[in-house]
């Protein structure tokens, strides 16, 4: 069966089509699917476009809800989302940022997917619609663990609580080419402070495993500590726990392991 193209006008139409057709793939910005088509990896199945206006909606009242079709450029236009500007700016050049969506980024293979690293450090939930029911919230970490299996349904949106203090959220992407290049690695950290101590640390790495991962060992050593030299030294020592970086055209596994603690420490100490 060759490629078939259809347009769905509502979430439930799209979710129904996806539930009924194992080959269906949702075309969002196109930066992943069109590449697979151009390179001959995707030759069959249903390509579905969703034109529901809610797919591209940003809702900032209370918990932040970003429609899965919200582009990186749309995030960069919202001052209220300033803490997400660094990860949005880290995705491609201006044309890619006009196209690439946050929903698509959840499916980007390593070393892509830097925006998802930021969402992981915000403890985001993915809203997934399976068949015709209401969307259900899936923790992002769980969603990423099941991503390779596929068949999770339609991603309608991403939700998270915004950081109380934007300065508590930090992001860094390391690439060899500036201003745009693939990730050697990326790091995001949400470190809410309570009485001068970290309370509820969330740290995430990109390009350190097949999917973006939580750095739970780093979170543990930072929890309850002031963000001082001793804590940063402990975080450096814990950085490599559980990582499984790969060797690719950008960096070797060895190099990624070597530089991860350095960049983590720079992020934590606020160095450029």
């Amino acid at each position, binding site marked *: 069966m060759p490629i078939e193209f259809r347009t769905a006008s509502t979430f439930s139409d799209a979710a129904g089509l996806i539930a009924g057709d194992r080959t269906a793939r949702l075309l969002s910005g196109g930066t992943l699917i069109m590449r697979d088509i151009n*390179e001959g990896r995707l030759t069959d199945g249903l390509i579905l476009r969703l034109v529901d206006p809610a797919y591209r909606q940003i809702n900032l009242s209370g918990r932040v809800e970003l429609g899965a079709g919200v582009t990186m450029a749309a995030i960069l236009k919202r001052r209220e989302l300033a803490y997400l500007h660094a990860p949005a700016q880290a995705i491609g050049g201006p044309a890619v940022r006009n196209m690439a969506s946050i929903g698509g980024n959840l499916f980007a293979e390593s070393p892509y997917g830097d925006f998802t690293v930021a969402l992981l450090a915000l403890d985001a939930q993915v809203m997934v619609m399976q068949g015709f029911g209401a969307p259900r919230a899936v923790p992002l970490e769980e969603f990423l663990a099941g991503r390779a299996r596929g068949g999770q349904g339609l991603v309608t949106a991403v939700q998270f609580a915004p950081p109380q203090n934007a300065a508590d959220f930090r992001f860094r992407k390391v690439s060899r080419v500036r201003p745009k290049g693939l990730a050697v690695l990326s790091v995001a950290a949400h470190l809410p402070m309570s009485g001068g101590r970290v309370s509820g640390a969330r740290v995430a790495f990109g390009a350190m495993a097949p999917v973006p991962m939580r750095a739970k060992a780093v979170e543990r050593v930072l929890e309850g500590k002031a963000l001082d030299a001793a804590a940063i030294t402990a975080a450096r020592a814990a950085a490599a726990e559980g990582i499984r970086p790969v060797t690719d055209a950008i960096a070797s596994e060895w190099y990624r392991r070597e530089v991860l603690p350095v960049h983590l420490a720079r992020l934590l100490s606020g160095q450029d």
Partner: protein
Amino acid sequence: MAKIPVQFRLNGSDRAAFVGPSDNLLTLLRRGLNDFGPKYGCGQGTCGTCTVLVDGDLQLSCLTLAATCEGKHVETVSGMAEGPVLHPLQQAFMDHFAAQCGFCTPGMLTAAKALLAANPNPTRAEVIDGISGNICRCTGYDAIIEAILAAARGGQAKRTY
């Protein structure tokens, strides 16, 4: 599978075509409509030489499904000059020797046009970000950056964008 009819504006003219369900916009422009301005470089969104404007937004035509362009306005580098009169950016690229092999130039000019439309007086850093999705393997970028800054400084440039 049947071909899909698409009607859209290309550089100000109404165009209609039949496209395959997996055809990208670049293929439609080059093979279907004989607009050879945008080039096919990498096919994966890395090089930027296929860059066009869709409803005023910079997009990569090789990553845009042609069937989604129904009712849109697509602008390519081919629409920049008015007859024999070059667009100020094109003139600045010539004046500053900003093209060598020329393969990146369609994308560079289009990216520069979008940048100046949004930001008529960019800093050098903003110009660099504006063309960061476009790879040039000849010039070392400096001549291109200078050309865009010069076009931005020119009074005519501001009026045209």
